[in-house]
């Protein structure tokens, strides 16, 4: 034995490499990639100007109006007529386009980031749970969590019909109850279904009656169905396929159309645009997270961590999540570009930011009519802003994909 150790010790002089963490490694690969640096610089410029403008360059869009300076071409030298410099020109209300593009960046990037956060957190968690529990035997707590989630998801339908959000919470409690008392009347599953169906019908029907008789009737029928579904505590496999089928349904709508429909339903506004774009993006992250979890959980180190007696939560968050982060980071970066584009599209259609709030898409929508009268600058600069921000995030995403790809690791 001593011989082996001494042989190895001979080797260590050149075998031990300098200690480097995985993320540091990825960062080094990222900054050695020129296009990724370009993307990083573009993104940084946009983020810094947007944040800087929001906090240090006051702008009140409601009072920004100057009919004397309508549709002025870009000027770079001070002239006699106007004492103000408009390097990007002015729009139909005489507002400085440079100022609005910079401030619009705050809104556009905010929409992008918040929308992606919404899709990432909801989609990511759903995908994570679906993938992990697909082939895992559930324990009591997990069953309670998943069945409650199912109740919440199903309950959203009658809650929406009756416009009573707490209905969804009650159905969530029904799911929780079903999981906690899973042995109650287990010998007669039929009776159990009837019992839960009746409770569900009562929740939906009675609360719906407070709104209108017809609503009460519809909610009672829906509640009955949900109760029957919830009567049997869900298995991991069933949760996974249920979640994924819902994701498939969302995906089957063209994403822009669905976002437009949601905003049309909620009413225009920046926040509602964020919600709509975020919701539409959920399935992308759910599917990505699920497939990544499925492939990682086949790895032997997951089996090894089970064999030293680690709990499900620890395995999921300590061993699986860090290993699926890289595709998700890449997708989120690319998704930011997508969300900014979607936000601009909604704004262009007048469904995003409400005028006079500056937003790139809305600025395009405001000004494209003046193209024919030669005011190209009113369209060009917001358009360029959209283009470059999207390009920046895409380049950065590409660079991250290369940097985080384990096959590229030396």
């Amino acid at each position, binding site marked *: 034995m001593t011989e082996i150790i001494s042989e190895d010790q001979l080797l260590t002089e050149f075998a031990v490499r300098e200690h480097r963490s995985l993320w540091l490694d990825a960062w080094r690969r990222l900054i050695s990639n020129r296009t990724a640096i370009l993307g990083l610089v573009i993104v940084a410029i946009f983020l810094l100007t947007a944040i800087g403008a929001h906090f240090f360059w006051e702008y009140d869009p409601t009072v920004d109006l100057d009919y004397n300076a309508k549709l002025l071409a870009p000027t770079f030298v001070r002239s006699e007529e106007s004492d103000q410099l408009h390097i990007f020109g002015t729009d139909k209300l005489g507002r400085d386009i440079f100022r609005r593009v910079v401030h619009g960046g705050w809104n556009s990037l905010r929409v992008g980031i918040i929308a992606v956060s919404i899709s990432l957190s909801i989609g990511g968690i759903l995908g994570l749970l679906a993938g992990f529990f697909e082939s895992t035997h559930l324990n009591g707590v997990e069953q309670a969590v998943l069945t409650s989630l199912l109740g919440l998801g199903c309950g959203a339908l009658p809650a929406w019909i009756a416009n009573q959000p707490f209905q969804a919470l009650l159905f969530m409690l029904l799911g929780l109850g079903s999981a906690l008392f899973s042995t109650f009347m287990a010998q007669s599953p039929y009776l159990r279904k009837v019992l839960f169906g009746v409770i569900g019908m009562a929740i939906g029907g009675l609360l719906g009656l407070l709104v209108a008789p017809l609503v009460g009737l519809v909610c009672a029928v829906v509640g009955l169905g949900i109760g029957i579904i919830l009567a049997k505590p869900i298995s991991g496999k069933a949760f996974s396929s249920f979640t994924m089928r819902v994701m498939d349904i969302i995906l089957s709508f063209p994403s822009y159309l669905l976002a437009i429909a949601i905003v049309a339903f909620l009413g225009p506004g920046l926040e509602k645009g964020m919600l709509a774009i975020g919701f539409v993006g959920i399935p992308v992250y759910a599917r990505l997270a699920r497939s990544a979890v499925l492939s990682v959980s086949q790895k032997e*180190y997951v089996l090894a961590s089970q064999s030293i007696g680690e709990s499900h939560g620890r395995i999921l968050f300590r061993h699986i999540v860090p290993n699926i982060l890289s595709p998700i980071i890449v997708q989120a970066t690319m998704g930011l570009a997508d969300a900014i584009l979607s936000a601009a599209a909604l704004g262009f259609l007048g469904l995003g930011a409400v005028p006079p709030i500056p937003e790139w898409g809305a600025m395009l929508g405001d000004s494209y009519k003046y193209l024919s009268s030669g005011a190209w600058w009113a369209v060009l600069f917001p358009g360029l802003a959209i283009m470059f921000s999207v390009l920046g995030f895409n380049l950065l995403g590409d660079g991250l994909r290369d940097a985080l790809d384990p096959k590229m690791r030396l």
Partner: protein
Amino acid sequence: MTANTLSQQSINSPLLRVSNLQTRFHTQDGVVHAVNGISYHLDSGEILGVVGESGCGKSVHALSIMRLIQIPPGEIADGEIWFEGRDLLKLSENEMRHLRGRDIAMVFQDPMTSLNPVFTVGFQICEALMLHMNMTRKQARERTIELLNLVGIPEPTKRIDNYPHQFSGGMRQRAMIAMALSCEPKLLIADEPTTALDVTIQAQIIDLVMKLQKEMGMSVMWITHDLGIVAEMVHKINVMYAGFIIEEGLVDDIYDETLHPYTKGLLGSLPSIDEAPGTKLVSIPGLPPDLIALPSGCPFYARCTYRQDHCREERPVLETVNANGHAVACWRWREI
């Protein structure tokens, strides 16, 4: 079972007693009968070799003991696994979790994938220690350095902060062994731990496990398809075929008084250094039977050179041959 018999059993019972273990997998093509009612026991301090070719249920039976079979599609259909007086199959998942790693530990075949690439090796060993031994991070770290030293990793104070990709295959397997031994388990299940390594490293790993086994006095179950490896290290051998134990006994009995035609075939197929160059390697013709449609007779019937009609009709059961527990499942062991 009364309290009296239970306590009596725990006194003079073996560390591990498996009886009639049956593990199946429900697949789209049908039910795969991976382990078909095997029974054996393992005393503390004993080393058991489980041999057999690929797909004969060696690993599945080990995973069944750890209850790490995926359910579904897997199912432990029947049997009992008594470990220190408790039936593992009747424990709750939570109790089982506390037992894994602390009382029974496992080393896997492929050291390349059995360490998580995003954490340092030291972190992963510390994890087991903090989980089962209630150590603080600092204590766990010190113990981990000791363990790495014990398994022969040079400069453990530096190596503890390395990532798995900075380790060679042999070092990773050493790290896995350190992880498995961290909580001083009573039983170590080594599932082909040397198959993915080259021969010199194989020898080192075997030496290491033998040394640690002597120091710690644990039992070891060494799963392999290489009869050459187990000959020198184990006390007992179970020869598995198609999910059955077809021959079992002390290592000398198996090698010197080989009874089952399959074991004979396995031993005969070992290449010998004395053979003249150009001699063809001997192999057992054919493949193991389809585990979905098991033959009703002897599972080895199709490949056996000693077969008779009776072998096809009725499945032989393990028959004890001598006082040392040598047993064989063959109708014709007396004649051949």
